[in-house]
Every structure is written in structure tokens, then in C-alpha cells.
């Protein structure tokens, strides 16, 4: 996406704005910027390449409006899990139970709405609460009793899977009420005059663009106010153009089909919210601190146990959300739902730049990692690659991504 913009040298006038490296030309600036932030941009570029490759191989089918819409729907729950998993991994832990918990919540939701006719909004709230409780029980064992997260959540994986089967008595339950189904499959409603596009989606895309641009400009202004170094103007403009182009592309694609899926809005809110928390909230900083160096964080007054506990509580709640979305999308809760989801979420986090030893990673990285896997899945499906080879290729993608990361770190390190 942004790579296309990057490639064009754009014979822009060598910035009068000054800036430290303005004389090197825009291309030089871009390359320098990339080199310095290889870790951040590497995966984004890889994602762009994968998208481009599959777009070519599928004769453009990958980027058909309907498929893009599908891509979002298919991957939403892994992305939701990946966000939570990223937090867990940054904190220096792992959570193997989320796949089973996803299934368990799906079953719970089915028992509530299908068997007991509980209204769906109540069921959603109850499910989220139960998920948070499940997460916090594991968090309690891990944070306060000191049981390694690998073991505690391995136990959770078995327990929740078993409880799912007990709940469902081996059967598949469905269908779900309409409202709940919309969570997994629904689109934003359409209003206004008939255009060839989905009006609300267009407006929404426009709003996102305006907000992003305003945020970036305000950020830059504040930096200047504090007389801190800012990125050269050329590079800044290029970044804005790239972001606008990307958002616009996705918006147009979605708008020319049924519009934005509801789950995309939820996902968007999660990304923005968690991204903000991880970057700007004291809580987020504390997660990085305990993952990066636990003893140092303790001696800095960070309440490490509480932070760990909350991270797992949060993971439980997000797993519940993912469970609801999966169940809603399949319109059924089955005993084998959510199988291997924990592995996909973990893979997403690592592809997106997390480190096994903790302390590193971003929410956006988790999303990018999840999308890499998602696009691979979807693209290979379109190409008719069997699930056997799909797994092989996804495994190699994980290895390649982390291998690149390690190589890159070694090169820049000592």
C-alpha cells in the first residue's frame, strides 16, 4: 500500500523547509527513515508485498470489494485475540487458553440465548463478564501464586475445552438471535440517496481521514511548540499522503460492496483504544516495564502483580468478545470452535514484532501480523491451495518474519 508511494521518487523541490537532511532529496529521506525504523516498517512492507503478490496471482480477485469485505469478517476474531495476546506477550507471558475460552464463551452464549431465551445484549454482557472472570482466575494464579503462565494457561486450555463439551453435551447449538448474528456478519445500515457506493461507509472513511490528519498535524505542532526536533516536512507530507491513500482505498473497496462490517468498527475502536493505552497510559507503560525487566520495574514501584493480573483479565474479556464474534459468524456454537486460535494469535503477535522475552511489541504490530496471516489464508484459498500446504506456508511465514527480525536486530546491534 504505502510502498507504491514510496517507490515514486517524486521530483519534489528539495525542501525549503530546511530540516536536518533536506538536501538528500525525498527518496533519501524516505530510505533513511525506513532504515531507522526497519522493525516498524519491515512488516508493513512485507504485508504490502504479500497483498501485491496475491493480487497479481489471483488476477485481482484478492482486492475485489467482496473479498476485502470477507477478509475483514474472516479475520476479525483472530485480530481481536492478537491484540490481547500482544499485551500478554509484552508483559513477558503467554496465554494458551484463549482458543478454548473462545469456544467456551460461544457455548455459554448459545446456552443463554438459544436454550434459555436470554435477550442477546444481556447475553453479550454476561459473556464478557464471564470471560473476564476466567481470565482473572488464570491471572490470579499467575500473578499472585507465581505459577508460570505457560502452565496455568495450558491447564486453562484443557479446562475450558472440557467445559465447552460439558456445556454443549457434544452437540452444536444454534441458530443465534439476529442481533447477535450481526456482530459477526452484519454491515452498517445504508441511508441517504442512492449512489453506487455505501454512503455511511464513505462518510466514515472521510471522518477517519480527517481525524488522522488532524491528529498528525496537531502532534507535529505540539512537538514544534516544545522546540523538539520534528520529522522533515517532506517526509511528514509523504506520511500523510500514504495514510490517506491507504484509508481511502479500503473505504472505497468496502463502500462499493455492502459497506463497512460492524465488526470492523469494533476492531477499529479496539486498535485505537489499546494502541493509545499501550503508548500513553501509565498502565501500558507498566506492562512494557514488567516485560522488559521485572526486577527493575519492581524496584521502580510498579505494582507488577496487579498489572499482570489485569493483563490476563483483559485477555479473558477479549477472548470472550472473539468467542461471541466467532459464534455469531458461524451462527452456531460447537465443541471444536476456536481450535488453534491461540496459536494464530500468538503467531500474529510474533510476526508483528513481539519478543519471546517480553517488553517489545505494539498493538498495530499485532494487527499487521494478523493481517499477514489473514491475507495468506485468504489468498491461498482463492488460489485453491489445500489446507495442508497452507499450514506449511504459514509456518514458514512465521519463521521468515521472526528470522528477519532477528537478523535485522543483529545487524543493527553490536
Amino acid at each position, binding site marked *: 500500500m504505502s510502498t507504491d508511494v514510496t517507490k515514486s521518487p517524486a521530483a519534489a523541490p528539495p525542501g525549503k523547509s530546511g530540516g536536518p537532511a533536506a538536501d538528500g532529496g525525498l527518496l533519501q529521506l524516505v530510505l533513511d527513515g525506513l532504515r531507522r525504523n526497519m522493525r516498524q516498517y519491515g512488516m508493513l512492507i512485507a504485508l504490502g508485498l504479500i497483498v501485491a503478490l496475491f493480487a497479481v496471482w489471483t488476477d485481482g480477485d484478492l482486492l475485489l470489494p467482496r473479498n476485502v469485505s470477507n477478509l475483514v469478517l474472516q479475520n476479525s476474531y483472530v485480530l481481536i485475540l492478537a491484540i490481547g495476546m500482544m499485551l500478554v506477550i509484552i508483559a513477558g507471558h503467554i496465554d494458551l487458553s484463549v482458543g478454548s475460552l473462545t469456544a467456551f464463551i460461544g457455548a455459554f452464549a448459545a446456552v443463554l440465548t438459544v436454550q434459555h431465551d436470554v435477550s442477546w445484549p444481556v447475553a453479550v454482557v454476561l459473556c464478557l463478564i464471564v470471560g473476564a472472570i476466567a481470565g482473572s482466575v488464570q491471572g490470579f494464579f499467575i500473578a499472585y501464586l507465581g505459577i508460570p503462565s505457560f502452565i496455568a494457561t495450558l491447564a486453562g486450555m484443557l479446562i475450558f475445552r472440557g467445559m465447552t463439551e460439558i456445556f454443549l453435551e457434544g452437540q452444536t447449538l444454534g441458530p443465534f438471535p439476529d442481533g447477535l448474528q450481526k456482530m459477526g456478519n452484519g454491515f452498517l445500515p445504508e441511508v441517504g440517496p442512492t449512489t453506487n457506493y455505501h454512503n455511511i461507509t464513505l462518510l466514515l472513511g472521510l471522518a477517519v481521514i480527517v481525524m488522522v490528519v488532524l491528529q498528525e498535524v496537531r502532534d507535529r505542532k505540539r512537538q514544534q511548540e516544545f522546540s*523538539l526536533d520534528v520529522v522533515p516536512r517532506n517526509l511528514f507530507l509523504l506520511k500523510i499522503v500514504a495514510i490517506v491513500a491507504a484509508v481511502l482505498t479500503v473505504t472505497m473497496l468496502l463502500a462499493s460492496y455492502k459497506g463497512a462490517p460492524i465488526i470492523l468498527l469494533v476492531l477499529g475502536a479496539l486498535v485505537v483504544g489499546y494502541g493509545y493505552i499501550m503508548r500513553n497510559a501509565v498502565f501500558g507503560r507498566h506492562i512494557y*516495564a514488567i516485560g522488559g525487566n521485572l526486577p527493575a520495574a519492581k524496584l521502580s514501584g510498579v505494582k507488577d502483580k496487579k498489572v499482570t493480573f489485569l493483563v490476563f483479565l483483559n485477555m479473558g474479556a477479549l477472548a470472550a468478545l472473539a468467542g461471541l464474534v466467532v459464534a455469531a459468524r458461524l451462527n452456531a456454537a460447537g465443541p471444536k470452535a476456536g481450535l488453534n486460535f491461540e496459536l494464530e494469535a500468538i503467531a500474529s503477535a510474533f510476526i508483528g514484532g513481539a519478543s519471546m522475552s517480553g517488553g517489545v511489541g505494539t498493538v498495530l504490530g499485532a494487527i499487521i501480523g494478523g493481517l499477514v496471516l489473514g491475507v495468506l489464508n485468504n489468498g491461498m484459498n482463492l488460489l485453491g491451495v489445500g489446507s495442508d500446504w497452507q499450514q506449511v506456508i504459514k509456518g514458514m511465514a512465521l519463521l521468515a518474519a521472526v528470522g528477519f527480525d532477528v537478523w535485522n536486530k543483529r545487524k543493527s546491534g553490536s
Partner: protein
Amino acid sequence: MAGPVLEMRSIVKTFPGVKALSDVTLTVRQGEVHAICGENGAGKSTLMKVLSGVHPHGTYEGEILFEGETVSFKDIRASEQRGIVIIHQELALVPYLSLAENIFLGNEHATRGLINWNDTLRHASELLRRVGLSDHPETRVADIGVGKQQLVEIAKALSKKVKLLILDEPTAALNDEDSDKLLDLILELKKQGITAIIISHKLNEIRKVADSVTIIRDGQSIETLDVKSAETNEDRIISGMVGRDLDNRFPERTPHEAESGAAPALEIRNWTVHHPIDQQRKVVDDVSVQVRRGEIVGIAGLMGAGRTELAMSVFGRSYGRHAGGTVLKDGKEIRTKTVAEAVGHGIAYVTEDRKHYGLNLIDTINRNISLTALDKVAKRGIVDEHEERQVSEGYRKSMNIKAPTVFEPVGKLSGGNQQKVVLSKWIFAGPDVLILDEPTRGIDVGAKYEIYTVIDQLAAQGKAVVFISSELPELLGMCDRIYTMAAGRLTGEFPRAEATQEVLMRQMTKDKEVSR
């Protein structure tokens, strides 16, 4: 004089963006102990990595001659085969394997992949005897002290038929007794014909064991001195290292006049702490100390005297089991059961082990500085990144932290600069009392002076400073009053005027045997 066993000629080593070594020439004679000294970041470790093949041939310029022939090592194994063995500052032993297993790790006595235990154990005990250890070769490494572990490393080197032994700050983590043992061993090995290169900050140590010393500064070899010659003294070496005459190693300080009226800023009464595992053992035994505002109070003690344990247990019970005693701040008793409480009462503890307890090495200078007092740059739980950046930029400039921006990972900084980050972090927390635990350990002379200046300023601003150190000259140079500790007990208290190295050392070694 014997001829050279090692010659490194005009070594140049460049990392992306940095020239670590710009022109180093080093000549080591057969059978001598050759010291290398220089400030942190001067290039000593890089030079040794070039020599031992960590940086393989082809990644540097220049020539290395070993035993008269040009060598080009492609990895550590290649250099070890020639008999060059390096022992790093951080020991490379596996804690849960036995001494014997560690000694022959990667080099096992085995036939067709199966270990021959008889040979291994017999050979291991021979090697252990050679380095003066009588422990059984099946003892686990985790069960012996750091001093002995260092000796095991040497035994391991001996097993590789070492001809040239390189020791990177071997005594940095050892107490005086263990250091002496180690240095004696180096001299003993010298008699057996093993040449040694020793990287060290401790000038008295260099005087004791080394025959010659090469000084490295800013990636260049400055000069090689004969240690035994009359004109080689500490000042000469120090001025070679920093490139200037250092007639005054400590900032000018007007000793504090104790205002007898006000209550001490911090008073610790009858503090007793038990060992976290061995709960019969008193690590800190009935210690009472106090410090006033504007005062710098030293706590002198050898390693294992209980200084760090005292400080850490007061600071949020971060060590051991508290068994009694109270803490008073400005005359009022306070609770310091958690770190947050201690920080809340205006106490800061700057650890002796910045890498493990002080910093998040993979995170930026910026975020390390703000961590303890995030609330100061946050509103309702949300950090104002611009304000945060401004704060840390301020510290980068005022503390002279050498880094291009505050977004540099702390792990990439040199020891001295890391220490400045830790200090900034705790100064930003705005404490009234700072407990500094070995604040100048493992950092170069130039940075030390800067840190002394900061400490002096803190006292001048009315902060109470507790200065824990085992380096007596710095305590004598900086403190208004000095306590001595030995084996967990307070053994003396001296005003600046009465304290001398000899007096302090006598108290620091007092009762040590009796209490064992």
C-alpha cells in the same frame, strides 16, 4: 626480556556509524601479565573480541600475530584452538550443572558421544586443584560463591590448554579476599608460563599483578607503560586514560554543618533482616543509621557486609525477611513495606546492579527516566508524551548523557551513561532521601567525576544522601560522615575528619571471622 607472544598491529574496527577502534597496537610479551585499561567505551572489550574471534577476521582492519605468525580467527573456537581463551565479565557457567560438567562443556571427555565420567571427574579435580579449589567436581555451580565461580572459569580455560588468558574485569564482582586469591592465581599461572591479559579499572590491582599496562582511549592505544618502573603511578595512568591531568578527582565540597535541631531526614532504628532462604541467618543485624538533609553519609563495607541488603529491605522490603526495626522520616515513623510506599515517602534507592535492577535495557532513555514518576507527566492515567520527552531531554543535557536522542535504547549506552540514566530517573522522582548503592561501579573515571558532581549538587539542594561504596577513596572524598559495616553489623561511625582508609578498613574487616 622474552619476545612478543602477541602483536596486534593498527587494528581498526568500525560498526555502522561508530568507529570503535581507530588505531590500536598492542604488544604482549611471552609470559607476562599485561593490563589494559581505559575508560568505558574506550574500546577495550572490542579489542578483545577482535582478538578472540568474536569479531571474525575480515570484519576489522589490521594484523594479528600470535607466536610469530599471522592469525585470522573466524570464530571463538578457532582462537581457543590456538590457546587464546577469554573469560568475560559476566560468567558463562551453567548454574545447575556440576563443576566438572561446566569445565568440559563443549569439550567433553567422550567416546562416540558418550561421556567418560571417570576421566571427566579425575581431570576436573586436577584442574580444580590447580586453581586452588578443593570443592568436589560434582558440586553444582549454583552452590558455590561468585569468587569460586571465577576460579572455575579459569579451570575451564586451563582445560583448553590455554597459552594466553584474557580476563575482562575479573574482580568486578568479587570481594577483596576473593580478588586477592584470583590475583595470586594469575601470578601463579604466570610462573607456569601462561601469559595473561587483564582488563581492569582497579589501579591497585594492576600494580599488584601486571608487568606492563597499555592505555586505550577513544579507540586508540595511547601508550604502554612498564608497571614496575618508578614513574608509573596511578595519576599517570589516570591522566593517560582521560587525556587530561586529574589533580582533583572529587568536586570541591564544603562539609555539611550538622544542624542539630531538626530531626534527621531518614533514620533507621535497630533494623534486622533475615536471609530470604536461610532464615536463621541475620544478614542485617540491629543496624541504626541516620542522615540529615544536605548531608552525604557513607556506608563502607565489603561485599557481603549487608549494605545492599540493608538498603533494599528498607526500600519496600525488596530483600530478605524483615525481623524488626523502624524507619523514621523527619522524625515520624513511616511504613515502607512496598516500593510504592517508600517512594511516596520521598525515598529513592539507586541500585548497585543497574542492568538487572535499575533499567529496562531494551527501552528508551526517555521511558526509563519517566517510569518511577510517570504520574508527574501524566494526567488521569494518560502520559503526556511531549512533556515526558521534554523532561528527559532536560536530563540528557544536564546530566550529560551521551546519546543522540532520548529515544536511544538504554542497552546501547556505556556503563557511565546508563548510570546517569538511573540517577536521572530517581532524581526525577523528586526524593528527599537518596540511597546510592555503589553509584560509580564499573564506570570510567571521567563519568565518575560527573556523578560525584551530581551527588554534591543533590546534597547542596538539601537532599539527604546515603552513599554505599566499597571504594574507600570515594567515600573519603565525598562524605561528611561514614558508617562502617561488617558481617551485617554496624562496626563504626566516623566524621570526615577522623576517617582514613586504614581506620575504615579495620572496622570493615572486624569480627568477620567470629560471626561466621
